[in-house]
């Protein structure tokens, strides 16, 4: 079993009220030096069977047709196991 991650973010030109609210709060929390915050969604899918080209293509379709509305959102699909680099987990 493998994990595929779909990240969905609002397109850059679309207003992101959530990200803005977070960013505006930062100075109050004593955080400087962060010039922009965007907030999006992360989906972790546990896939049965091999994550081959075909499986990824299907997940890409799923993301495009269901997890994201491509009118306002962009998405990326990653296989998790290979993406856990440079991670500073708690």
């Amino acid at each position, binding site marked *: 079993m493998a994990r595929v991650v779909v990240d969905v973010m609002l397109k850059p030109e679309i207003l992101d*009220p*959530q990200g803005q*609210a977070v960013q505006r*709060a930062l100075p109050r929390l004593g955080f400087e030096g962060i010039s922009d915050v965007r907030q999006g969604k992360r989906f972790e899918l546990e896939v049965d069977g091999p994550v081959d080209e075909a499986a990824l293509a299907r997940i890409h379709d799923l993301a495009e047709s269901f997890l994201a509305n491509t009118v306002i959102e962009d998405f990326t699909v990653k296989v998790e196991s290979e993406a856990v680099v440079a991670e500073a987990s708690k």
Partner: protein
Amino acid sequence: MTARIGVVTFPGSLDDRDTQRAIRLAGAEPVALWHKDKDLKQVDAVVLPGGFSYGDYLRAGAISRFSPVMETLIEQAKAGLPVLGICNGFQVLTEAHLLPGAMLGNDHLHFVCRDQKLRVENASTAWTSDYSEGQEIFIPLKNMDGRYVADEYTLDKLEAEGRVAFRYLDVNPNGSLRDIAGITNEAGNVVGLMPHPEHATEPLIGTGRTDGLPFFTSILKKLVNA
């Protein structure tokens, strides 16, 4: 003499005026408090009202919890100032760790607005003494993030110490663990609940019931008799 009860307005607070009205209906004096002021204007008690402060954008209550007013409030609540958090106010209190646990999105993923049946489990807090233990009441509920969660240890402790103040009856409207609708801190001065007692204070308005008024008369009596 009457009591002065503060109502904090955060940006995005919605039920602040209604809460002031409910305080007035109970016979106390409402005092408007502003999130940017550390000054609590020497009020005798504070209500954190419902609404969507900061749009509830990060998590409900998460951004308000860092307002200047909360600095003073957290300090004074720990020293015994009576504080009631309604809905978004309850969420702020959990984010501020004045009450244990956390609030999550309703399990059915929708906003829910309904006349909710509750059982009063603890009638000895500053805000519930005008109820009797076991009393069943109807209070309007309206929220998106009303699912109360805490770990098993905390839940057991709350139960054991009688700190579950209100429990949902008939329907659990949001997936809260153990049907918890409201809790109190150990000292009984800080109470939070999801339903809106301020919306159940006039016979003609809303559901037409006045089951919420005792919240405000409880605190008034306590303060005046103190």
